[in-house]
């Protein structure tokens, strides 16, 4: 016979006002197997917990039921209390008589609430009788981290993990780390030069003995589970031997062919053997294979001839590297919605209509114009320049419904950059709202208007067209309530921030969730902002949603602290709520394998004594299983059970109703 204790909480008046907790306690005392019951004002308080511990010891309880609030609130509290009194924590069950009972019933005679509390508690008592003592699962941890994406968020995460003494592999798709931040001219609201604050971090990452940077590489496959991932990285052929290249740049100088520069967003050309920008890390050029005459037609090869150390290798092939890591930080960043999407703004065909990022390059001292603002069509200095905000953002019909968050700030910055370089020019900004929530942000946008003479007009521009060498902008100023026309020399579109192309396929490889815009989902938007549903995989930066540099850096550091916490011990303990297969009865239909959202179920061979494979079983990997129970529902022969939620327990509860 069980020796169960029932503890009914009054939660001040939260429960007591519609539930007669004393009645519930005395009713439950009559249940077979219940040897103790009581009620208390705040069961979660220290004296309340002490009551629980004392009762477990004095009455020699072998299971307790706490009828109180949601298990999300205090399950941990009472399981800990049970454990300290010598009871297996999984023999402690919580009944939610607050959120699911007292808060939803307003009957002050307490009849309904008391009856429902009795029902719920009785069910859990019967369920508890079938509970088995469970033990936390310990899994070994491989103390090496993988960071995907070498932008500022990824660099920060890698540096922090490496400074914590753990090895990091930093994977970057482009030939250099740096990401979008490397493109920016100056940063709001301090107006410090972006590269000046970024490149020291890039160099620090390159020189750090715990960080291994793999550029021009992509994650091909990720297997395993928290603490024990196996990652396959595709290292694209650079056609340059990284171990011997000195980065002298002779090859780039002598290469006779040019192609559009991705880094300069088409505003400039680069050589076919190139580094994206002068401060590239690593400072090793790559050959753009589709444009290289040697690789496509077998002629030229000048770079190989001029290369002193003989590092050019036209025979190099893509390489696949396998690494064992314990945690993954995803920091793949963002992209901008292309100008071609917007018919009313010229489909990207008007030369003097550029994107915000292109303007960054024009304003950058290392950019194609050396920091002079010239319009792309004829190289004239624009006397009137119009900035349009919310292009594609907050546009449910044709764009995305969300606010891209950083455009208000960077547009204000653009107006200042323009004013600093074209003193008698006039900048206009069409905006819908100015969203300057952030430290010193509001002051910054005001400064643009009050001290730097930017003219802000509230309205969305209806159309842009070319006339007599001008770009005519037609919109409205809703503050004065009139239609306005500006004959501008140049227009800058603050296009929406969107997820990277291929963000969804990477998410599928990693087994993490993403929303309809392919931004990655956090485990919990407020309380677990860097975790994902897949344990051991963390998120940083704008792959989660639009965000600015300080936020990306904070998230990078936050992920790093999570990784370091995970790496702080050789083994990690996790909840034992995992599925298990009854292997005698499994008929290997693999429905569970297909159903499992975490790829936690693997196909296991059954061998005879000679080692011949005589059959197959499903096997749950306890490290990966998240205890969702989908396999239990999918199994046709009912041989999968979820520890802590077995069919036996669930049916016992139902039968008690």
């Amino acid at each position, binding site marked *: 016979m069980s020796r169960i204790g029932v503890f009914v909480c009054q939660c001040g008046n939260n429960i007591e006002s519609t539930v007669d907790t004393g009645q519930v306690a005395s009713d439950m005392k009559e249940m077979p197997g219940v040897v103790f019951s009581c009620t208390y004002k705040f069961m979660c308080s220290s004296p309340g917990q002490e009551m629980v511990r004392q009762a477990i010891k004095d009455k020699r309880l072998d299971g307790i039921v706490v009828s109180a609030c949601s298990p999300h609130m205090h399950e941990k509290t009472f399981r800990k209390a049970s454990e300290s009194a010598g009871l297996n924590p999984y023999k402690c069950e919580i009944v939610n008589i607050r959120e699911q009972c007292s808060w939803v019933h307003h009957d002050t005679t307490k009849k309904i609430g008391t009856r429902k509390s009795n029902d719920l508690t009785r069910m859990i008592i019967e369920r508890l009788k079938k509970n088995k003592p469970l033990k936390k699962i310990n899994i070994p941890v491989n103390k090496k981290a993988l960071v995907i994406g070498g932008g500022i968020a990824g660099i920060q995460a890698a540096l922090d993990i490496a400074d914590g003494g753990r090895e990091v592999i930093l994977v970057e798709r482009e030939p250099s780390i740096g990401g979008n931040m490397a493109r920016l001219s100056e940063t709001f609201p301090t107006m410090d030069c972006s590269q000046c604050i970024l490149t020291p971090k890039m160099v620090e990452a390159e020189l750090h003995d715990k960080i291994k940077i793999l550029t021009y590489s992509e994650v091909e496959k990720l297997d395993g589970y928290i603490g024990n991932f196996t990652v396959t990285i595709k290292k694209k052929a650079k056609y340059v031997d990284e171990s011997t290249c000195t980065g002298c740049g002779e090859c780039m100088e002598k290469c006779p062919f040019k192609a559009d520069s991705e880094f300069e967003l088409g505003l400039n050309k680069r050589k076919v053997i190139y580094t994206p920008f002068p401060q590239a890390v690593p400072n090793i050029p790559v050959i753009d294979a589709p444009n290289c005459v040697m690789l496509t037609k077998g002629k030229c090869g000048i770079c190989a001839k001029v290369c002193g150390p003989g590092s050019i290798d036209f025979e190099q092939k893509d390489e696949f590297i396998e690494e064992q890591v314990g945690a993954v930080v995803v920091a793949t960043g963002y992209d901008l919605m292309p100008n071609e999407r917007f018919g009313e703004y010229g489909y990207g065909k008007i030369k003097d209509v550029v994107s915000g990022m292109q303007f960054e390059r024009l304003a950058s001292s290392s950019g194609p114009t050396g920091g002079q603002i010239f319009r792309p069509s004829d190289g004239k200095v624009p006397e009137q320049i119009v900035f349009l905000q919310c292009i594609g953002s907050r546009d449910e019909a044709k764009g995305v419904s969300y606010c891209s968050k950083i455009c208000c700030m960077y547009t204000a910055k653009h107006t200042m950059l323009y004013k600093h370089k074209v003193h008698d020019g006039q900048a206009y900004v069409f905006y819908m709202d100015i969203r300057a929530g952030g430290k010193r942000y509001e002051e910054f946008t005001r400064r643009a208007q009050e001290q730097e003479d930017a003219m802000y007009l509230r309205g969305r521009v209806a159309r842009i067209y070319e006339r007599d060498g001008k770009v005519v902008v037609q919109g409205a100023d809703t503050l004065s309530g009139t239609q306005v*026309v500006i004959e501008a020399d140049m227009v800058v579109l603050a296009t929406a921030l969107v997820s990277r192309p291929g963000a969804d396929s990477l998410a599928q490889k990693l087994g993490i969730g993403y929303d309809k815009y392919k931004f990655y989902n956090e485990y919990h938007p407020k309380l677990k902002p860097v975790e994902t549903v897949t344990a051991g995989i963390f998120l940083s930066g704008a792959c989660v949603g639009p965000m600015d540099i300080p936020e990306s850096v904070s998230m990078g550091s936050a992920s790093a602290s999570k990784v370091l916490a995970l790496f702080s011990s050789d083994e990690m303990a996790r909840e034992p709520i995992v599925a298990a297969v009854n292997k005698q009865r499994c008929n290997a239909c693999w429905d569970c394998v297909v159903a499992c959202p975490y790829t936690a179920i693997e196909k296991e061979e059954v061998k005879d004594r000679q080692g011949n494979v005589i059959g197959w079983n499903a096997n749950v990997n306890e490290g990966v299983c998240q205890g969702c129970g989908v396999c239990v529902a999918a199994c046709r022969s009912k041989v999968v059970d979820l520890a802590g939620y077995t069919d036996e327990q669930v049916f016992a509860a139902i039968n008690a109703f």
Partner: protein
Amino acid sequence: MKMNINKDEIQSYAIEQLERISGEATKNCYQCGNCTGGCPVSYEMDIAPSKIIRMLQIGKIEAVKAANTMWLCVGCLQCHSRCPKSVSVASVLDALRQATFRSGADHIDVKEIPVSFLKNTPQQAIVCGFRKFVS
């Protein structure tokens, strides 16, 4: 109404002069509308006080001069006392009147004021009226 917005009007001498006379920077206004909300006579104005500032921001001083707003303002300074950006619309309107007088245009002709009106009006009001409406 369709408006052509341009640099020449925004950076015009007239607006610069107005800001110099009044000592106010119209750019500082962020169009919250508190001045219009609290103004005791804004309901009678052709262009409300906050919109006056807006029109000056976008360089439309002629439209502002054509409106009755500056003549209706009683100078109670409610707009100034409540403005979160400390812009005094009253000072701007005063400067507008000044600028108008400097061009030699009076708002009223003293000779046309009926004698009966002058007889029934307190002397101080007449002096104030002269200061406000004639150069």
